């Protein structure tokens, strides 16, 4: 959480928190574990009314943010959802909304944005491919020009909420280069297969494109020249992912610290044992650093800072390593209770682990940093 939220933002945060706490407390999340979709459309529409899908969309299409910095408002929602391991395609839908808002034709915008803002349509980004490939130069799905349109071939996985959405934004490759296409979920030749997931309510699917035809009007942005758009989408995704992780850790750190005071051993509260106190000091430091990194990344993306690519990867790799570490420490502090299904902690650890490895692992983002800071250049 940024320490310097505006009054409007604080109010927004409080409203969001109250809504989530009353509408989708963790007991409800547990029940959704058995739901094939992992969330309910009607609930998502109500979230949309709260502004969850409008922050990155211009006012003319029903969008709007608190003070013109939509991403900084949206990360507040992501963080609150992290605090309650909420379901819902917040990241997925907003990445697509943002891409369409920034690069779509008026027709594309009119067709998609109002429906996304109202919560009637949900969308996701089909970026990653089998074998953990997600970087621009690894994209293998082909889009071949044909009859004033494109034929798409190849596989995308894992795709977040792939089995639940109405609309895909597919990152593919034409002869000219990276190209993005808007593909409806019911397109002919598209097979969507549910995958298993570590998270209780976040669903993933594998998409198989077998000669899926889309008209030229499906291209988002410029065919063959989508690299910058893909980078931007990645940054938006990471900013939201980071905020969610930080929110999850924040909640568990609070709960665990409380536990330390309540639980006694040898007649003393656990909180009085120096070996444990020192581990909490480290956790507190890492958690402050995680929050600083997540806030810094969101600001860099919001402001389109020149160094945003390296900043988001720095935050992603640091938070990826430290968030799950803190949560594992919190499991340990709880003793046996911490490894039981019935205690909520593992729901948070699952979410943070999923976030750690989706949209690039910490290791992959460090490799990206090495490239971004010029390690491939000639030695001077």
């Amino acid at each position, binding site marked *: 959480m940024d320490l310097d939220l505006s009054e409007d933002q604080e109010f927004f945060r409080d409203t969001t928190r109250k809504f989530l706490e009353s509408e989708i407390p963790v007991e409800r999340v547990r029940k959704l574990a058995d739901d094939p979709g992992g969330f309910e459309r009607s609930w998502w529409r109500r979230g949309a009314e709260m502004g969850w899908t409008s922050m990155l969309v211009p006012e003319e299409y029903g969008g709007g943010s608190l003070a013109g910095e939509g991403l900084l408002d949206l990360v507040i929602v992501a963080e609150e959802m992290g605090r309650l391991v909420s379901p819902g395609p917040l990241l997925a839908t907003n990445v697509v909304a943002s891409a369409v808002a920034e690069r779509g034709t008026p027709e594309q915008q009119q067709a998609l944005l109002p429906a996304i803002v109202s919560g009637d349509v949900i969308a996701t980004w089909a970026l990653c491919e089998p074998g953990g490939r997600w970087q621009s130069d690894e994209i293998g799905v082909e889009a071949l020009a044909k009859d004033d349109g494109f034929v798409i071939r190849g596989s995308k996985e894992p795709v977040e909420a792939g089995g639940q959405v109405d609309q895909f934004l597919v990152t593919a490759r034409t002869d000219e280069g990276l190209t993005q296409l808007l593909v409806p979920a019911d397109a002919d030749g598209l097979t969507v297969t549910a995958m298993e997931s570590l998270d209780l309510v976040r669903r993933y699917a594998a998409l198989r494109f077998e000669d899926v035809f889309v008209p030229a009007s499906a291209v988002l942005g410029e065919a063959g020249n989508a690299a910058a758009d893909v980078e931007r989408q990645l940054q938006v995704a990471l900013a939201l992912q980071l905020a969610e992780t930080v929110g999850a850790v924040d909640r568990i750190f609070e709960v665990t610290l409380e536990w330390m005071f309540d639980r006694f051993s040898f007649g003393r509260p656990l909180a009085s044992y120096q070996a444990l106190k020192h581990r909490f000091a480290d956790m507190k430091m890492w958690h402050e650093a995680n929050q600083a990194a997540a806030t810094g990344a969101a600001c860099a993306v919001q402001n389109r800072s020149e160094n945003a690519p390296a900043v988001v990867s720095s935050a992603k790799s640091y938070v990826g390593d430290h968030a799950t570490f803190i949560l594992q420490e919190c499991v340990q502090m709880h003793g046996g209770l911490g*490894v039981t299904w019935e205690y909520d902690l593992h729901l948070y650890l699952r979410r943070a682990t999923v976030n750690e490895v989706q949209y690039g692992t910490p290791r992959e983002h460090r490799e990206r940093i090495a490239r971004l800071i010029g390690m491939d250049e000639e030695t001077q």
Partner: protein
Amino acid sequence: MTDTNPNIEDVEAFRLRARAWLPDNMPPRQEGVGHFRDFDRGRELQKRLYDGGFAGVCFPVEYGGLGLTLEHQQALDEETIDYAMPLVLNVPTFTIIGGTLLEFGTEAQKQRYLPPIIRGEEVWVQFLSEPTCGSDLASLAMRATLDGDAFVLNGSKIWSSGAHAADYAICVARSNWDVPKHDGITVLIVKIRQPGITVEQIIDTNGGDEFCQEFFDDVRIPVENVIGPVDGGWTVVRGLLAHERNAMGNASPLSSGRWLTPTETGRSDLMELAMTSGQSANPEIRQLVAEDYALRYVQDETTRRVGTGMASGHLPPTAGALLRLMGARAGVRRSDIALTIAGSSAAAWHTGDPAGQMGSRYVGRQAVEMGGGTTEMQRNLISERLLEMPREVAADRGVPFNEVRHNAMPARGNKG
């Protein structure tokens, strides 16, 4: 364990007899996980060994054993390395329970309980931990009230592996609340399946159901089931824990057959995953697989060093805590490596992809830092017993148990 009998069978003769008997009587080795689901298989295998005259090698003859030496057992272990063995009965049944009964049991208890153990007929577990105990085992609050010729037990035990599939338990209870915690403890033999005892399986974060919680409602245990003195059971508990550490250091003569060491099992699961996921040429992944290999090698050597050191007296029995600590840290590191190798497949995978297990493994990784006393307790033991650094201040030292602050019993079904 038994006086050397000049008339006992020569070790080599014993070995050859085993070598001749095994092929027709024991099935080939099949590594299990030591899970309660193997209890029945364990009973059957132990029965075969018993019928062939190879059960209870170091148990005294008068209680159904063979009264032979550690060398005989080691010869048997070597001969049986390629055969299925009832390894699941080694801990706690043979080593911890057997050792504790031999050390502290009455003659009648030994006569009654050891023979069925050696025949593989009765499987035991330990009822030690309680929901309110945490690391402080001696703060247990199961109430044992003397009523005529029986103790009446009320309370709850937890983290007993496979209790619902076992027959008997060694159960530790509080018989006196007006004295400091160590001075009011009584140890009892409890038949698990009897009125008043409810066994519930606990589901762990990975969906596993190994652990149990037991609820005792006015369970009557006859006084002849008490092991050691009434109110003086803490000595028995300490002995029991020493048998446990011995077993962990592969230093118990009551153990029969052994697990393959990690370096004997060939390719590790981590290497397998790295190879099948096409990452065998990735230098960072190679580092991690090699780190795991080195760690397993060093762990083996450390077990050997500490185990023989405890056996020879160069190291005190608490040195077993070093193995427990190392095992836990290595286990955690391995889960981290597994997650890194699995990468994004740990989060979302196609059914049947082994990489999909690595996320769950990571989520449940702390279990190894809790079983058999938390890692923090091992660090206390090592620093205070092995290194003789000053003991932690215990606010309950010398204070009657009923005046000490305890943890409240969580409500059943509490989610914390």
